[in-house]
C-alpha cells in the first residue's frame, strides 16, 4: 500500500474537521475524495501532509509513519493543497528550483519537463505576482508533479482553471496513476471525480460515509452524483 489511513481524527477548536477517517490506496489507484465545502477533505489531506497534527489515528505513506517520520514520508509524497503555495516576488522557475533542491533526482531538465506538461514553459521567468489565478494553479500543479512521488495529493486541483486546464489536470492525474503513483484527489464536483477516479470516498460533515470502486458505483447508480446524494440522504436518515 502507498497510503494507509487508520481511524484518523483531526478536530479544530470549533468542532469541525475530520473524524475517524480510514482508507487505503495502492499504486496506480486514483481515489476521489468527494464532499461539499467544509466537509473535511482538506483537513484529511493536511493531516497526511503534516500541515496539521491528527488528534488520533495512524497515517502511513509507503509503510512509513507520516506523523512521527514526517521527513521520510514526505520523501514519497507531493502535494497541492488549497491555493498553490507560491512566493509572489519570485519567478515561476525560481519557485520550482527552490522545491527541486529537496530532491536529489530532480534537475533542470525535470523542471523544464513539468513546465511543459502544465503548458507554462513560456511564462517560466514571469514573477508569480504577474500570473493569473489559473496560471498560478498550473504552477502549483507543476510543483506537485516535480518529484514524481509515489503519492500525489491534489486538493481541488481544477480550481481557477478553464476547460482546457481542467482537461489537463485530468490527463496529468491519469498519467501519474499509469506510471504507478497513487493519487488522492479531492473535489466538491461529482462530475470531476467521475471523469478521473478509480475509487470514490464520500466525506460529509467530517465523516467518511462510503468508499467504493468507480465500476461498482456506476453499475448501481447512473452517476457519482446520485451515489453521493444517496449516501448523504441515508446518513441523515432519509431516502434518495
Amino acid at each position, binding site marked *: 500500500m502507498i497510503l494507509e489511513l487508520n481511524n484518523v481524527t483531526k478536530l479544530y477548536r470549533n468542532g469541525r474537521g475530520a473524524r475517524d477517517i480510514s482508507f487505503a490506496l495502492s499504486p496506480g489507484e486514483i481515489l476521489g475524495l468527494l464532499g461539499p465545502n467544509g466537509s473535511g477533505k482538506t483537513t484529511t489531506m*493536511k493531516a497526511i501532509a503534516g500541515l496539521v497534527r491528527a488528534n488520533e489515528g495512524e497515517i502511513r505513506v509507503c509503510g512509513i509513519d507520516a506523523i512521527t517520520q*514526517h521527513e521520510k514520508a514526505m520523501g514519497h509524497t*507531493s502535494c497541492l493543497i488549497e491555493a498553490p503555495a*507560491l*512566493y509572489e516576488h519570485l519567478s515561476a522557475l525560481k519557485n520550482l528550483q*527552490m522545491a527541486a*533542491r529537496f530532491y*536529489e533526482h530532480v534537475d533542470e531538465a525535470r523542471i523544464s519537463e513539468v513546465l511543459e506538461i502544465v503548458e507554462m514553459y513560456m511564462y517560466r521567468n514571469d514573477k508569480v505576482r504577474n500570473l493569473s489565478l489559473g496560471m498560478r494553479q498550473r504552477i502549483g500543479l507543476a510543483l506537485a508533479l516535480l518529484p514524481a512521488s509515489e503519492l500525489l495529493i491534489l486538493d481541488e486541483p481544477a480550481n481557477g482553471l478553464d476547460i482546457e486546464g481542467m482537461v489537463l489536470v485530468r490527463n496529468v492525474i491519469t498519467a501519474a496513476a499509469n506510471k504507478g503513483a497513487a493519487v488522492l484527489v479531492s473535489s466538491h464536483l461529482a462530475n470531476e471525480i467521475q471523469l478521473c477516479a478509480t475509487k470514490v470516498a464520500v466525506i460529509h460533515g467530517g465523516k467518511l460515509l462510503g468508499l467504493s470502486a468507480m465500476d461498482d458505483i456506476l453499475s448501481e447508480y447512473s452517476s457519482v452524483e446520485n451515489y453521493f446524494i444517496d449516501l448523504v440522504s441515508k446518513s441523515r436518515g432519509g431516502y434518495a
Partner: protein
Amino acid sequence: MRLFYAAYRNETDKLIRRKKYIVFLILGIAICLIWAIGGSLLSDVIGRNIGLFIVLTPTPMGVLPFFLQVLLPLLIFMGVTDLITTEGAEHTMKAMIFRPIERWKLYGAKLLGVMTYVAFYLACIFTISLIFNQTMGRALSFIGMWEAFASYALTLPTLAVLATFAALIALLGRSGSLTMFILVVLYMVMSVMPVFIPILSELLFTSFLGWHRLWIGVRPDASRLMHMLIIVAGYGVVFFVAGTLIFDKKEY
C-alpha cells in the same frame, strides 16, 4: 544535512531577492560614506581653519554602534517577520513544510538564513567603511583594522540571540506589520529599561549587543566574560528550543 542545506539556500534566496534588503544595504553604505566625509571634514577642514581639533572614532568603529543598536535589529526583525509571520499569513509556509524536511531543521534554516544576511551586511559595512576610512586620510594601523574586524565578528553571537528572540515572537504573530511593530516596541522597552533599573543591564540580552567593547581594548576579568557568555548562550538556547517547539506544533 543535504535537506537542511537545501532549506537554508531557499531561505537565504527568499530574503536577498526582496528589494527592501538591497535598499537597506545601500542605506548602510550611504551612512558609512556620510560618516567618513563628515569625519574627514570635522577633523581636517574645521580643525585647520578654526584651530579646533576634533577626533572622531575611525569609521568602521564609529558606525558600528549605530548599526548595532538600530539598523541591524531592524534588519533581523524584518527577516524573521518575512520568513515566519508573513509566510504563515500568506499560506506560503506550507510550500516548505510539505517538502521532505523536519520542522526543526526548517526553523533552523530560517534563522541561519537571516543571520547569513546579517553577516553579509556586516561584512559589507566593515569593508566599505574601512575603504572610505583608509582613502580619506585617516588610515587605521594593522592592529586597528584587526580590532575593528574582531569587533564586527564579535557582534554576531549577540545578534544571533536577538534573532532567536525575534523569531519566537514572530511565531506568535499573525500579521507581518503588527509583528514588526511589536518587535520594535519590545526592543525599545528592553533597551531603555536598564536606564531605570540598572541591574537589568547585567541580565537582559539586549544590553550585550555592544559587548565587543569589553573584548577589545581594556580586558575585563575572566569571570565577568564567562558570566556574560553563559547568559548570552543561555538566552540563545532557551529562545531557540522554545521557538522550535512552537514551530513544531504550529498548524498551517
